């Protein structure tokens, strides 16, 4: 089923981006990057049957790029041989910036402590995608999606209990 392209599509990407980013990375920047990519490749993607999967893939790529960039910066030194301090302006917890309620903030914080695969699949589930759509978005067999989701939800329950 084709996605309807509107602000809800972008909001969906924000939910999913929260499962991709880690630490101080900004999910909005990932979404912005993915949207720029889609817009600049309009002819290629405007009729794509699963444009959300394209955006998710792009966001993952952007996140990896960001990690590489940060690693590179952290290995650099100044003229006197001192490690460069990377100034991170995104210190604020993203759940504070988004303005979540306490209960959901706790859930998001718990998800952020989990491994990459769990973060990803739980936020795709939070986007209210079916198992089948989750499988399409992360190019994983549906059986794997279900067993991973079950495992991650059990872990999440333990964390928020």
């Amino acid at each position, binding site marked *: 089923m*084709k996605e*309807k*392209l*509107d*602000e*809800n*599509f*972008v*909001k*969906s990407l*924000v*939910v999913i981006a*929260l499962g991709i980013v880690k630490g101080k990375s900004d999910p*909005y920047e990932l*979404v*912005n990057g993915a*949207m*720029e990519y*889609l*817009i600049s490749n*309009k002819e290629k993607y*405007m*009729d794509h049957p699963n444009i959300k999967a394209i955006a998710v893939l792009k966001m993952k790529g952007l996140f990896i790029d960001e990690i590489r960039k940060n690693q590179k910066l952290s290995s650099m030194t100044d003229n006197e041989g001192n490690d460069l301090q990377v100034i991170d302006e995104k210190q604020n917890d993203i759940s504070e910036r*988004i*303005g*979540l*309620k306490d*209960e*959901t903030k706790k*859930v*998001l914080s718990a998800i952020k402590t989990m491994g990459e695969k769990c973060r990803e699949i*739980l*936020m795709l*589930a*939070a*986007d*209210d995608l*079916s*198992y089948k759509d989750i499988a399409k978005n992360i190019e994983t067999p549906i*059986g794997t999606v*279900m*067993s991973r*989701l*079950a*495992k991650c*939800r*059990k872990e*999440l*329950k333990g964390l*928020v209990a």
Partner: protein
Amino acid sequence: MIDETKIMQYADGTLPVEEHEEVKKAIESDPKLKELYNNFQKTGDLLFKLGNEIKSQTLPKNLQEKANIIKTWKKPEAKEFGSFNFFGLFKIQYAGVAAACCLMFVAGFYADTFISGKNTKSGNEVIALNQSIDVPKDLKFRGMPKQDEDLSTRVTNLYRYFNQDQFIQDINSTIDDLEINEEFETSLEDNDGKRVKFLLVENFNANGNNCKKVAFNEPLRLSENDQGTDVTLDICKIKNNYEISSINLSK
């Protein structure tokens, strides 16, 4: 074999109907499975709330601008609006329904009172039914929160158009025989006197009750600004009769 994915599917309402009985019995007879089932229900709700809360936030300006750009890419696919054009039909009798439904939409509401518009011989009226449904806590009235839409008008016009009593009466004896993706008609007619068609989308389980998701077979234009709303109905069998448990509107 009952593994945890089956329990999760059952809790999520996605387990195939033919497997319900086996899983239900296993849950009832094994406290560990019962706990697992409860936990899956809980995490399902938590994730749903999390997603909705994030989506209810206003987008930063740069993302909103991009959303506006992609919105212009393509209008919703060819829709036969003529049959389902109900804008401009607002009646004050429905204001209560609209207000109540808006609250439901914003809050992700779990209802134990069903509020509805009803056509009677003396005119249209708003009714609130305190139904003794066994499962209402887990049945949801879902809708995507949007700040720019004329939701109250859309809800109002939907109720003006949709006679739930007639719908339930029509489908009660036939819906169990339908296959997934099968189209069917009821005696409901649109403004042009054309029979409204529905589609059986899926079978699912809610707290052990057999439920079905039914969709209007084409988007409805429910207000002047509405470019097409997909409307689905969740109906659950309670005491041998189907009842509407939730109405879902999405664009």
